[in-house]
């Protein structure tokens, strides 16, 4: 561990490299986390199938490239396709767990996650897939810091998506309907908002965000049917830290998590990287609880 810290001193640009790469991973987490925050906030559902939606998005892009399309087209197409998938999922199953105990939604979407994993395995095979965006990397600081173009695009896209989501929720009609429904579904219904439609749209929007994230993930990293869970749990974590209502906080938490995780992996050794992330999450929860308890409140 000390050796690893010493490395930072010996090669200062390395610290930059580790942090930058972490931020770039964090951007993908943030993208998936927007969706989770949205669904959590509006439908009051903890969407455990999040990671699987990301993976499916990746497969869409993978298939497109197989058919000879340029990889970057995959981002919007994946988002679009996943929007449809999300809509269908909502109409078929998810709507049944809205308005129910949030714990029921956790379990139900967990079941969906297993189902999708398995169907992905049966239809795409368990091979590890990746798509070469063909863009190459960027170099800084004498090659010590390298940033793949595609990760940079992912980063920018994640920020753009966050900004447009914010703008959409604030100014678009559907966005306003979503916010109204989130605050008070009954009142929204009385005001003539078709909340069922709003829920479906929200869930589909979430799936679209995941689709974009997956498309970027398959270009920057790899995907296979069983790798949704890391995305799910990190989205969880981001939302737990940032809360459901604040897009900016989600971006910050996502990026922060990515950077922190990468630094932890570097310093503690990669075998403790995931342990660190989860220990951190538990610590944050406990700390927030203790702070609330001191004030005669409790964490809700």
């Amino acid at each position, binding site marked *: 561990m000390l050796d690893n810290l010493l490395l930072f001193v010996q090669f200062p640009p390395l610290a930059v490299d580790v942090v930058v790469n972490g931020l770039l991973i964090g951007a993908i987490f943030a993208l998936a986390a927007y969706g989770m925050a949205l669904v959590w906030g509006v439908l009051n559902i903890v969407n455990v199938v999040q990671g699987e939606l990301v993976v499916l998005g990746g497969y869409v892009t993978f298939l497109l490239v197989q058919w000879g399309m340029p990889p970057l087209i995959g981002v919007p197409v994946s988002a679009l396709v996943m929007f449809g998938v999300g809509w269908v999922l909502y109409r078929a199953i998810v709507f049944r767990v809205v308005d129910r105990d949030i714990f029921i939604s956790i379990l139900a979407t967990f079941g969906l996650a297993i189902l999708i994993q398995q169907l992905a395995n049966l239809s795409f095979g368990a091979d590890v897939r990746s798509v070469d965006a063909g863009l190459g990397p960027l170099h800084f600081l004498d090659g010590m810091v390298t940033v793949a173009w595609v990760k940079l695009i992912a980063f920018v896209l994640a920020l753009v998506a966050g900004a447009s989501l914010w703008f959409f929720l604030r100014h678009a009609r559907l966005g306003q309907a979503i916010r109204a429904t989130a605050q008070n579904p009954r009142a929204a219904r009385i005001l003539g908002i078709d909340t069922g439609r709003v829920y479906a749209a929200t869930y589909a929007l979430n799936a679209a965000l995941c689709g974009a994230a997956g498309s970027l993930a398959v270009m920057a990293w790899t995907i296979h049917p069983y790798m949704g869970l890391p995305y799910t749990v990190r989205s969880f974590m981001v939302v737990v830290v940032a809360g459901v209502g604040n897009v900016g906080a989600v971006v910050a938490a996502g990026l922060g998590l990515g950077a922190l995780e990468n630094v932890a992996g570097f310093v503690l050794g990669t075998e403790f990287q995931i342990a660190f992330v989860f220990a951190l999450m538990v610590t944050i929860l406990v700390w927030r609880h203790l702070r609330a*308890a001191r*004030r*005669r409140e409790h964490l809700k």
Partner: protein
Amino acid sequence: MSVMLEVREVTKRFGGVVANDRISLTVTQGEIAGLIGPNGSGKTTLFGCITGTLPVDGGEVYFEGQPISHLRAGPIARLGLLRTWQQTRIYGEMTCAENMAISAREAHGGLISLLKPVPAATRIRASDLLAFVGLHEKRDERGGRLSFGQQKLLEFAMALMNEPKLLLLDEPTAGINPTLINGLIDRLRRANAELGVTLLVIEHNMRVIMNLAHRITCLAHGEVLAEGTPDEIRDDARVLDAYLGVA
């Protein structure tokens, strides 16, 4: 008679809104005190501050001379200061008898005492108290299936089961069938007289509170507006203003 509860300059803010602004009041042992005021005047908030469910931003609450505003709900309840809720809180999935059994005072004890079965004496007491509030036939019914008024009565019985020294009641007659209200007033009085429970009652129904309370405090806009006997309050122009002015 000794002072049981003293609220001294208690202040509570929600964001920028001051819900309780330096409120002071006292409750003497053995009396029935009333707390009135228009909607939003801070009565329920004050209950929260006293019984430990809301943090207090300023001032102090003394119960039998002991400062309690830093304590949470559990320890305060174990001192003998209890409250009921306006919207009633009972254990919905448990039967009335179970609701009563777990409300007994001995449930305050440590783990070892909890590992004993419910003693026969407690069962009898629970049964008596259920009969006292008129729910004896419902004793095996789940709490959540009772009507709102019945739940209120159950909550009251549960509170008595706990043998509190001071009981804070938040609108005990709200939602109760008007024909039953006189019976309820009678029970509150008997609880006070026979069981020796000091009461502090929030009430909207003027007829009830004027009938019941020995002394009344009136809040408006988070401040104490007036204090006195029912007659004094009835004649106080400011109180009348506060009610009519708001309406």
